[in-house]
């Protein structure tokens, strides 16, 4: 379970262009479920997602992941969480150009120093699951949007994290590929993964596999979800 308590995020603190993107957000995200943060552009959903995933630290407030308070953890432990607890799929995929599909997928596992053969086999298996193994040797800049997204998902799952975090995963995809993505999410959910994603695409947050939808506006939660677990619980 992920718990956010009174989270605020302010950029450029103390400067003329100081800007508060998140205002005192409280939220609970249950494990093994699919949660969607929705809202218009500038509503703060991506910023909140980066805070949940430990890509940035909140200006105030606390975040607990599986019972552990993570906001005050040293950078080293946050890195450990990004590597082994969270898997990220970015809106623009953020694959590293010039490297092959296989290399991109294996990058998060490099610092773990596991045996090369096992790592390679795991990466190929993931690519096969996501039906992109035939492109293993292709440099990622030559992939289509849908292919790049599947590579990004494979990269996010290479260390078998329990939580998948995805930012606007279908923003660059057409309807068919968006449906394909939902199939992948369904499969992950079936394997017991927690999925948290942002989207302003109704096809995503209206999908039957989504357990909770959190609506945001102007850095605040305006609707805390459809989950019957109670207020503030997604």
């Amino acid at each position, binding site marked *: 379970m992920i718990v956010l308590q009174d989270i605020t995020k302010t950029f450029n603190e103390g400067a003329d262009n100081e800007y508060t993107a998140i205002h005192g957000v409280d939220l609970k995200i249950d494990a093994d479920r699919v949660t969607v943060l929705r809202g218009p552009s500038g509503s703060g959903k991506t910023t909140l997602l980066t805070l949940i995933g430990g*890509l*940035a630290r909140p200006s105030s407030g606390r975040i607990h992941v599986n019972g552990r308070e993570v906001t005050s953890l040293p950078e080293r432990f946050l*890195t450990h969480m990004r590597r082994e607890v969270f898997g990220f799929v970015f809106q623009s995929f*953020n694959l*590293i150009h*010039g490297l092959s599909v296989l290399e991109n997928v294996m990058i998060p596992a490099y*610092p*773990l*120093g*596991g045996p090369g053969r096992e790592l390679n086999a795991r990466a190929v298996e993931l690519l096969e699951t996501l039906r992109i193994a035939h492109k293993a040797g292709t440099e990622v800049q030559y992939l289509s949007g849908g292919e790049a997204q599947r590579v990004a998902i494979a990269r996010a799952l290479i260390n078998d994290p329990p939580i998948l975090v995805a930012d606007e995963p279908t923003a660059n995809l057409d309807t068919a590929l968006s449906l394909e993505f939902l199939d992948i999410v369904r499969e992950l959910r079936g394997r017991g993964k927690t999925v948290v994603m942002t989207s302003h695409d109704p096809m995503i947050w209206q999908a039957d596999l989504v357990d909770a939808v959190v609506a945001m506006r102007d850095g605040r939660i305006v609707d805390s979800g459809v989950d019957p677990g109670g207020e503030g619980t997604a």
Partner: protein
Amino acid sequence: MTVWLRRQKRLIDYTVASLLRRAARNFALLAVYTLIVFVLATVMLFTHALRQEAMVLLDGAPEITVQRISMGRHDLIPASYVDAIADIRGARDVRGRLWGYFYDTANGANYTLMVPDGDRYGAAPDVGETVAGAGVARSRGVVPGKYLFLLSPRAKLFKLKLKDVLDADSEIVTTDLVLMAESDFRAFFDVAPDVHTDIVLKVRNPREVAKVAEKISNALPDCRVVTRGDILRTYDSVFNWREGILLALLGGAIFAFVIFAWEKASGLSAEERREIGILKAVGWETSDVIKMKMWEGAVVSLGAFLTGYVLAYIHVFYFSAGLLEPVLKGWAVLYPRFELTPQVDGVQVATLLFFTVAPYIAATLVPIWRAAITDPDAVMR
């Protein structure tokens, strides 16, 4: 393989892939870097080798050399001066030498004809025989057992049988030597039997060299007295001067390279910042990113250093530093050619390594460190 080793291997693998992704830029940097190391190492290797040659030369040089000066020029010295010097307290092993230069028009080469005194090059060859330096043998194409023909200044042809070729432990000393018997020498240059080219001597107490030299100067006012220390200082200043001139000329190029390297190393492109952000976002530690970039800097700088140094070594010792020869050798660019004896000074290598590799790696790491300690989210924005 341990986890640590596997991590390093992965980091290096990634580094290599990263270098190859920006192959054109890195190759250009490597080429310029290599060129700078090559030129610097050439100057250092060359001047060091020349100094070593000079040291070998000086090892066998007499403590004091006395030359007669006539109208400001070196003249033959009467044999009677030998006795006069031998009478000076502190002087020992006083003897006259016979040596002279011979310009070989056939090869355009300068030879040094000499009668060995039994110390450095052993006993004099028999009459009609010679022992020559490697350069002479090469330029004349003679081997032991064959004859060396020399045309004397009085246009008389001398035929000397080559008995042996001098050991090339220091070619600059021996390359142009032609050793011969005293009677052959006097006949060749038409030198009277009661004169020598100069007089050399040793001093009983090495601390008395200056004093003995002063006594000789006083006793023989028409003579110039040269000590081994004088020669050493002359060599040093000549080589330092040449090295200094070249390094000063190179200064501009080195400065330009430093700016280029700093610019390349310190200015992280948006793409590189994004890459660092991605790596941190997917779980690389700050130290992993820094290590990876350190490997990258090490591959470029050490690669350039090793390539440049090896090329300089080959250039100096196998191609006689052909590109810089006129500046570095100066008057020594005379025939017969000599090959420098390969010499590598560990301190010089370390100095060059420190001044070329360390600044580059440092310039690479500082901006990387600054980017790597930032939240990945901020780096990617």
